[in-house]
């Protein structure tokens, strides 16, 4: 079956799954009125029924008018009843492909396919929902097309080599030592302290801080749900990151799409030697979608792991990370007293690495082929101390590599050298 030839539809079950999320929300909102004892009026019930029917009807219409197919090197999605839109997504520009499966979709064996495109204005293409096996096949085919190889009918999941598996115990440990937990504990301590002095004040604090507490618990839950059972594997079509407790996400980052890598070592994890490794990919954050997992633009390929694990993983993602690093001049201590002990940077002809951070130590690696522009910045305090900072701008969103507080003359020389190296890296890549 040639996938280029025919228009595909999404699964007929899709509107139900989509509405399902709304339905759950509606139940929560109307839960009070559904309880026995609270009198439900007939008109209220009718309103609810009408809302339900309208939601389902919208879903069905949206499903009816949506179709997609692969045309040459593009994925084309047509949708919309009144405002008909035909979206074209050039496959060679795919930055990453995600297979997202919310709980409800998992129950029915469905999956959503999401393509992350490059460019500041490009969004992401979404196919919700396909059957889970079909989604995997389509992903493999799209990735093959993105690489420029023709799809064979038997293009299936390629074999993979597992690099890292995250034990649940360590994940929970890391969450306990994370900042939300610390916040909750500090708040609990404050409330306990207040209670010892005056119970009345404690109740006041409790009621006002409960919203924050709920928020923190949500954050912890989301991290647990997001990173549970995480597996990083390497296949010939890229790096695969799978994880999830209730909602699962499987992400594929094709080779050479990594804009930057960042390693974060929070203060609380330092005694245990743990760190977090994150990968930055180009493509705009897609806000307000119906599913949450896409919020995580900066993907933690290793939410918590030992330095050794992080370094072996880094070696797979960026094979030629520079080893040596140099420290800034000691007068930089006056400009950045908290950061100073973490500042350093190094580079070779392929990649630059910088470290910074006040409490947590943040190490960023940027492949020079991905550097978009370079900036040399000198603020008033830096001018007084003859220091300067070089920024390496990348198309990623969260990793900001900066070579901070170097000697001004050295920084100028390095800017020149980095300019040449970046150009050489671009040329080597086949571009000019």
């Amino acid at each position: 079956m040639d996938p280029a030839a025919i228009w595909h539809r999404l699964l007929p079950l899709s509107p139900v799954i989509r509405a399902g999320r709304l339905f759950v929300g509606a139940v929560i909102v109307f839960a009070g009125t559904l309880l026995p004892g609270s009198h439900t009026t007939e008109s209220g019930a009718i309103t609810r029924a009408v809302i339900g029917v309208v939601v389902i009807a919208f879903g069905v219409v949206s499903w009816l008018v949506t179709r997609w197919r692969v045309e040459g090197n593009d994925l084309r999605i047509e949708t919309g009843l009144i405002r008909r839109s035909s979206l074209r997504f050039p496959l060679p520009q795919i930055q990453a492909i995600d297979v997202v499966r919310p709980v409800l979709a998992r129950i029915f064996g469905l999956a959503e396919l999401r393509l992350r495109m490059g460019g500041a204005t490009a969004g992401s293409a979404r196919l919700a929902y396909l059957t889970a096996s079909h989604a995997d096949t389509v992903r493999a085919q799209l990735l093959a097309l993105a690489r420029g190889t023709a799809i064979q009918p038997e293009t299936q999941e390629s074999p993979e080599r597992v690099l890292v598996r995250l034990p649940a115990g360590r994940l929970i440990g890391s969450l306990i030592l994370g900042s939300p937990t610390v916040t909750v504990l500090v708040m609990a301590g404050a409330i306990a302290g207040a209670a010892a002095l005056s119970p009345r004040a404690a109740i006041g604090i409790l009621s006002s801080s409960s919203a924050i507490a709920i928020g923190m618990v949500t954050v912890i839950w989301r991290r647990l749900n997001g990173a549970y059972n995480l597996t990083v594997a390497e296949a010939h079509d890229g790096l695969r990151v799978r994880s999830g407790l209730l909602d699962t996400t499987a992400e594929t980052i094709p080779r050479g799409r990594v804009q930057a890598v960042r390693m974060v070592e929070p203060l609380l994890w330092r005694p245990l030697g743990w760190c977090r490794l994150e990968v930055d990919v180009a493509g705009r954050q897609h806000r307000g979608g119906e599913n949450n997992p896409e919020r995580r633009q900066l993907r933690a390929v290793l939410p918590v792991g030992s330095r050794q694990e992080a370094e072996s993983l880094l070696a797979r993602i960026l094979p030629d990370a520079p080893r040596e690093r140099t420290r800034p001049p000691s007068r930089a201590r006056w400009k950045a007293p908290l950061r100073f002990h973490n500042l350093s940077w190094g580079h070779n002809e392929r990649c630059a690495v910088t470290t910074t951070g006040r409490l947590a130590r943040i190490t960023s690696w940027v492949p020079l082929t991905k550097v978009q522009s370079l900036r040399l910045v000198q603020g008033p305090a830096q001018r007084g101390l003859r220091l300067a900072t070089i920024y390496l701008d990348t198309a990623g969103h969260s990793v900001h590599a900066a070579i901070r507080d170097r000697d001004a003359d050295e920084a100028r020389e390095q800017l020149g050298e980095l300019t040449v190296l970046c150009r050489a890296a671009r040329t080597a890549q086949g571009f000019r």
Partner: protein
Amino acid sequence: MEPTCLRWPDVQPDFSVAPRVAVQSAVILDPVSDTSTTATDQEEVWLRPSPRLGTMRRVEVLGVTALAAAIVLVMTAIRFVAGAPVDLATAVILIVAIALAGVLSDRWAQRRVRAWAYRERDDDLLVRRGVMVSRLSVIPYGRMQFIDVVAGPIERAFGLATVRMHTAAASSDARIPGLTQIEAGRLRDHLAQLGEAKAAGL
């Protein structure tokens, strides 16, 4: 438009007023460029915004100052008409303070105008700016995704425009204000042409 406005060979980069660092960085960066330029024509390569940008900034500062002074005057006049006691001394002090602030911000604005400079090299565009915080950006032509020419109402009245260079990185944010519209058009076309020739993927 007079042809001398295409470039400003007569307006030599005024290194005495430009921030020291930016000047040095320009010199340091020169060995990098493939063009084996001699020290004499290097100085000509740095281009600057039109001198009219200084006038425009002065007019802007003047407008804001006049507005602030007018508010003080109107308030005083209203009190006078209403028959309330008028504190003339305060009004005078306020007006003097506003005038002083206007003069100071004009000086500052002029220094900032003089700090802008750009240079087209073989593979990249250099833009330097800033007095308090001096910045030097290196934007390779191949990395430019698109180029905007923007002219607001005040800029249009002075026949000026701002050229913005966009790369895939949101933090790049390079722009050159106060170009004559001819120069802005030339720069845009030139950059677009070079960008096409040297385009690099993400």
